[in-house]
């Protein structure tokens, strides 16, 4: 699975996700990627793209969860994204990238690693696979 989220200087947000799914999946199996609110979601607060075990991500509506936690519980993007990944299912099932309307970035995951990269207008960039520490 691959994905990208972006916000411009005017606060416009978008999310895009694409995948081949699971190795050895049944023919006709749908994963989280095309399910809006599960693997992909964007509203006026944030944009989210998820990856991992699709069946868990669909059950937990992970991408929408991040936006809802920000909207109804007033969590920051970082807090909301971390909580949504933590609640998504057992260790090893999920990761996501997200940006917020005010240019915050979050890339939490509960797997061993996640191929990820980000950049912000204030000059911060990161390209990584495993935890930084």
């Amino acid at each position, binding site marked *: *699975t*691959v*994905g*990208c989220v*972006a*916000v*411009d*200087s*005017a606060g*416009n*947000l*978008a*999310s895009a*996700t*694409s*995948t*081949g*799914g*699971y*190795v*050895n*999946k049944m*023919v*006709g*199996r749908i994963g989280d990627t*095309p399910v*809006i609110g599960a693997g*992909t979601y*964007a509203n006026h607060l*944030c*944009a989210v*793209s998820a*990856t*991992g*075990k*699709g069946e868990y991500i669909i059950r937990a509506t992970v991408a929408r969860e991040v936006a809802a936690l920000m909207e109804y519980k007033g969590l920051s993007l970082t807090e909301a994204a971390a909580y949504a990944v933590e609640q998504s299912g057992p260790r*090893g099932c*999920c990761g996501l*990238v997200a940006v*917020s309307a*005010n*240019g*915050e970035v*979050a*890339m939490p*995951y509960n797997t*061993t*690693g*996640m*191929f*990820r*990269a*980000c*950049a*912000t*207008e*204030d000059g911060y*960039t990161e*390209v990584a*696979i495993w935890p930084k520490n």
Partner: protein
Amino acid sequence: MVGWAIALHGGAGDIPMDLPDERRIPRETALRHCLDLGVSALKSGRHPLDVTELVVRELENHPDFNAGKGSVLTTQGTVEMEASIMDGKTKRCGAVSGLTTVVNPISVARLVMEKTPHIYLGFDGAQAFARAHGVETVESSHFITPENIARLKQAKEFNRVQLDYTAPTPNLPEVSGDSQIG
């Protein structure tokens, strides 16, 4: 408003910490290339919808990631690709599943968002819609890499579906007649 920002991923999973350099470096280089592509598009004032589509197309074209070329295989050894895209301000969105010959599924998802009253098209309908809109298509074999043929074989041997990078483990007890694990 603080300023623009972008984040991208190439999949998560049980990526072994001892991943050999010849498999790690091309992926890191591709991530950096796609990041640079997205940043320059944002800096030149492109809308985030265009930026995310552009970056995901680039990732789909890279055989080391599980999307587009390099998509993993079904139990029948075929490719069934899916994608979606969403605009935050309007909540407009588009999604496709079951594409077998389209080079960039994310662009078909965008066409669904912009050219139909629907959100989600699947399988034969999505394939027909893609053809009708003249998006680039190739033989399904274009998407199948030797690495993914080997991974399917491995997954079958261990009788399991496999997350993007999870190393296969020995056979798991079958539950109700078929493997229940993701």
